[in-house]
């Protein structure tokens, strides 16, 4: 391997999402970020210039870089989340470019679910508005570790420090109250290019990083490895060949934590115990592995384990429960009502479930709770209580985005109904945690 290859592959990967309403200049920011970091290639730019000319526009419309669908270009809107890829010498980026209009809650939830950083855009002339609070609340709910407040259109407020400082202070107070752990405010003009990639000479009073500098240097979250280990079993590997007559490995991606050979483990929900005899990391034997590596575990005892089981260190195994209390974001067009029979997909396990209660619907604008709404419709966020047909080894979403998240699925047509997050809604709030029920079911008479 040469130096070139090593240097190029040594960089880390940051997944981030953008949030902003239609007129905040999100497309311009994304276009500017791609353009100024030299991530737009000649043929893409030519295509945009060509399309802009066909529409009678004098300057290339950078939004056309990101609006990929026929209907989007025809209507000048963004329909759905798109993923963009760019790289600098220091880092690779995957940008979830989420549209800022009507359906934005579910779109932002989609983009933020895998993001380690969210950029919330604000128009400097308008300051913190309802939309800004909703974006902050979604980032807080999804537990995105880093939030950037990009105060845009600073050129239209005379690059005034006081305007920026007031907005930054108001937003930081609000988002901190929701439990957002890290907030960085940056004054920018996406149109003029101030503080997006290059530092602005128009705002000498600002001593912080540009948007790109911050994206390049923000620590990529490693808290996954500080949590107790969780290993959802995806697939059992049994070659049964002459070369490997007795090989029996449990394949999966480590959801959190670190696993070591020799560690005592418990398999859930059965509760059987064993010891990790070997870890195969994609064909090669290792002593230690950590999230989010995809590996194969071999255990000392031949016990019954299949897809959907969870392997965890015996010292820190999660409790199992059939009563899930969670916050859900409803993402489907058909409503979710109390009494609905659904499927719950948690890690690699899919089980039947019933919606027992919808205690409240959250109004994102002021975070007020609307009690017992009866049902949730598209883009609603609410608390639900779900009873599952089989026990789940569920963590609180606050502890693990991977083992605390789940989908609710319509068993009739397979539609993804809702995105669920177990446990408390916001880090800043104190709500009772989901009860840890015993595995015993008191309602065995279901007829699905």
């Amino acid at each position, binding site marked *: *391997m040469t130096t*070139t*290859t*090593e*240097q*190029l*592959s*040594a960089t*880390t*990967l940051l997944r981030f999402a953008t949030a902003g309403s239609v007129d905040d200049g999100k497309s311009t920011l994304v276009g500017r970020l791609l353009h100024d970091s030299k991530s737009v*290639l*000649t*043929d*893409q730019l030519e*295509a945009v210039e060509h399309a802009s000319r066909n529409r009678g526009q004098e300057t290339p419309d950078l939004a056309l*870089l*990101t609006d*990929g*669908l026929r*209907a989007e270009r025809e209507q000048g809107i963004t329909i*759905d*989340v*798109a*993923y*963009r*890829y760019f*790289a600098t010498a220091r880092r*690779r980026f*995957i940008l979830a470019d989420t549209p800022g209009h009507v359906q934005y809650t579910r779109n932002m*939830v*989609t983009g933020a679910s*895998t993001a380690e950083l969210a950029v919330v855009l604000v128009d400097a002339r308008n300051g913190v508005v309802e939309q800004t609070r909703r974006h902050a609340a979604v980032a807080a709910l999804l537990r995105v570790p880093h939030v950037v407040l990009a105060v845009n259109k600073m050129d239209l407020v005379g690059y005034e420090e006081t305007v920026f400082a007031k907005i930054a202070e108001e937003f930081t107070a609000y988002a901190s109250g929701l439990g957002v752990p890290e907030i960085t405010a940056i004054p920018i003009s996406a149109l003029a290019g101030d503080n997006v990639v290059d530092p602005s000479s128009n705002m000498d009073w600002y001593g912080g990083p540009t948007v790109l500098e911050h994206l390049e240097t923000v620590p*990529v979250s490693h808290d996954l490895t500080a949590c107790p280990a969780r290993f959802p079993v*995806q*697939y059992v*590997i049994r*070659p049964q*060949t002459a070369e*490997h007559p007795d*090989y029996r490995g449990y*394949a999966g*991606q480590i959801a959190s934590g670190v696993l070591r050979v020799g560690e005592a483990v418990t398999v859930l929900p059965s509760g059987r115990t064993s010891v990790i005899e070997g870890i*195969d990391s*994609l064909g090669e034997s*290792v*002593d*230690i592995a*950590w*999230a*989010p*590596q*995809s590996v194969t575990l071999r255990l000392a005892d031949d016990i019954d384990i299949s897809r959907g089981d969870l392997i965890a260190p015996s010292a820190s195994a999660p409790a199992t429960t059939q009563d899930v209390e969670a916050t859900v974001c409803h993402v489907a067009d058909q409503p979710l009502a109390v009494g609905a029979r659904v499927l719950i997909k948690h890690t*690699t396990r899919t089980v039947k479930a019933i919606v027992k209660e919808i205690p409240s619907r959250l109004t994102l604008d002021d975070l007020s709770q609307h009690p017992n709404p009866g049902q949730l419709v598209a883009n609603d966020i609410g608390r639900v209580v779900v009873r599952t047909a089989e026990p789940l080894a569920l963590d609180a979403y606050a502890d693990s*985005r*991977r083992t605390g*998240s789940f*989908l609710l*699925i319509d068993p009739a047509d*397979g539609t*993804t109904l809702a995105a669920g997050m177990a446990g408390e809604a916001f880090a800043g709030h104190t709500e009772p945690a989901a009860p840890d029920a015993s595995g015993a079911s008191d309602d065995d008479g279901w007829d699905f």
Partner: protein
Amino acid sequence: MTTTVAHVHGGTDAPYALSHLDSLESEAVHIFREVAGEFEKPVILFSGGKDSIVMLHLALKAFAPAPVPFTLLHVDTGHNFPEVLEYRDRTVARHGLRLHVASVQEYIDAGKLRERPDGTRNPLQTVPLTEAIQRLKFDAVFGGGRRDEEKARAKERVFSLRDEFSQWDPRRQRPELWQLYNGRHAPGEHVRVFPLSNWTELDVWQYIAREGIELPQIYFAHEREVFLRNGMWLTAGEWGGPKEDETPETRLIRYRTVGDMSCTGAVDSDATTLDAVITEIAASRLTERGATRADDKMSEAAMEDRKREGYF
């Protein structure tokens, strides 16, 4: 300790960080295993091109030491590079895999498809592909498509539900949350699966270099007789080129993509090694498809329109 740990630590400051290639590899392997765990009859689309070669390599690693639990499907346009077909057959034999071939030429010979006036067969692949999926009852079909390739592909999900006509409706895609892929589908429907969604062309080449994966030789610089059509260097062949006003000349070229000969252009290059190719790609100011694919230039939404009909 093994090389895995050595390259994981390279260039990162945290003890438990993953390099970006390891992150992408781990994610792709997770996707392969999800499909193996949840579907009855998956298939990998395998053309002998670099993306499908990387897919197969990842699948081999995902299930080692057991064999890959999928068969392969090649949609043969009849205008393939002979080196690529030779590579395809050799790879299939080496790993003891089963290959299905859906042939565009057979459809043309049977009168079920008509040759296009421009001689391009790429758009003709859709019918043999979708009919093979229905006939052989595949419920999950792996494709090597990457979101960085094209703006319509940037909108594609990792698990992409297709109806019984294989159609893609970008407005009716399921939201894709966390790493929880929803593959539920009705009988007759299937799911297209893209494990390389988050990879870029450079990632693919760096991974090929790191893993020491063999490729067909047309990916490396070689002298070849080509002619210019619509700004692209095409290889002469029985498919309809060069025409009278097109002059063949011998140039030092290589291919960035491998597809139907009638619409896959070569680029001028002296890159004969993987490192030279990586250096060239890193410095290139043209996207892979922009540089080498005639069929994407047909209209602003060419890829989207083909995808809606069932193309990858």
